[in-house]
């Protein structure tokens, strides 16, 4: 766990990895979207509006994966005092919030033609909106507390507590009657989404995941560089 605790060692890995993730992710997303938009047939009832799924579902998954990352980083900050953890959690928060927002926006765009409304207050939509607000709150809290000092712990505790929302989002469509449809994609059972849509969706999800990882690495590098500058300025002032 502490093998990459040393920022120099982390940077020596992150630096060459970033362009691969970034350009690989961009290529996969472009390919998956072209595939999904131009070569998949209209859906039985939704028609062409089904094609927003190639963006909407990866945004939802990564919005949730992002908070999982924040919670893991926060735990390792609280328990093991991992020196990179607070940088990682803060780096994830902004793309996480963006992806959650894009999930809500693409969902609304789809909901208008498919359901007949932009928005309803059902379990799934509301819990996803709560996730977006949690991200905003985390960003504010993290910016108010310094990365290095013990006060960062407040943000870390919030990062751990927020994970309660993730099973609520995931199971909202099973626990409660919702406007949102149930789960279509299953790893263990049979998926109820036709393979013609499933494959471009999976490629798109991998592509967006690589992009997300690239953004996180870039933000972590920037955050580490900032800390370094602050340290240097402090030493210069002391001399």
């Amino acid at each position, binding site marked *: 766990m502490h093998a990459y605790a040393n920022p120099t060692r982390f940077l020596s890995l992150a630096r060459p990895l970033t362009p691969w993730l970034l350009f690989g992710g961009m290529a996969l997303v472009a390919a998956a979207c072209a595939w999904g938009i131009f070569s*998949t*047939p*209209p*859906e*039985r*009832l*939704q*028609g062409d509006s*089904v094609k927003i*799924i190639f963006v909407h579902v990866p945004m939802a998954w990564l919005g949730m994966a992002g908070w999982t990352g924040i919670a893991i980083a926060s*735990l390792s900050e*609280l*328990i*093991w005092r991992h020196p990179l953890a607070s940088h990682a959690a803060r780096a994830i928060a902004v793309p996480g919030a963006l992806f959650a927002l894009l999930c809500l926006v693409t969902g609304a765009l789809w909901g208008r*033609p*498919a*359901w*007949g*409304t932009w928005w*309803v*207050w*059902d*379990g799934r939509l509301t819990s996803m909106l709560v996730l977006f607000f949690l991200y905003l709150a985390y960003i504010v809290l993290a910016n108010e507390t310094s990365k290095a000092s013990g006060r960062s712990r407040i943000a870390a505790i919030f990062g*751990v*507590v927020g*994970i*309660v929302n993730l*099973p*609520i989002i995931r*199971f*909202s469509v099973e*626990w*409660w*009657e*919702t*406007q949102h*449809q*149930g*789960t*279509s994609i299953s790893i263990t059972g049979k998926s*109820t*989404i*036709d393979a*013609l*849509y499933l494959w471009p969706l999976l490629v798109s999800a991998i592509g967006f995941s690589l992009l997300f990882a690239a953004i996180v690495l870039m933000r972590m590098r920037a955050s580490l560089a900032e800390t370094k500058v602050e340290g240097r300025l402090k030493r210069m002032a002391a001399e």
Partner: protein
Amino acid sequence: MKAKHQRLTLAVLALLALVGAGLLAAFALQDRANYFYTPADIVAKKPPAGQAIRLGGMVEEGSIQHEADGVTVNFVVQDGKARQSVMYTGITPDLFVEGSGVVADGKLTSDGMFIADSLLAKHDENYVPRELEGIDMTGKMTKTETLVE
């Protein structure tokens, strides 16, 4: 090492308490977080006539009947356990077809009819290409084998 273990134990305990609280809250919400009543719910605990409720379920096959005025539609919502007759006046969403899901805002009349003020279509978890269903938007039957391959 000692402090690290102490923190780990604390964190595990806190997480357990957190998950427990979350589950309890979700359990307590069970009924009230439902976005709509199903026909079976209405049979089980009939809401008073005139009270605004939301009804959801599947549009029964062969039940959609358009009235002579052209904007009023009668249909039956079922959930496999119970049935509920619905009357709605207005423009129906594109996905409103027999055998598909629907969510209706409205109220029950004293004779057990559900008068809907608004209709939302509900998509289910099945994503099927139109070609495989043989349904075309223009109403023509089209079977395109090329896309099935």
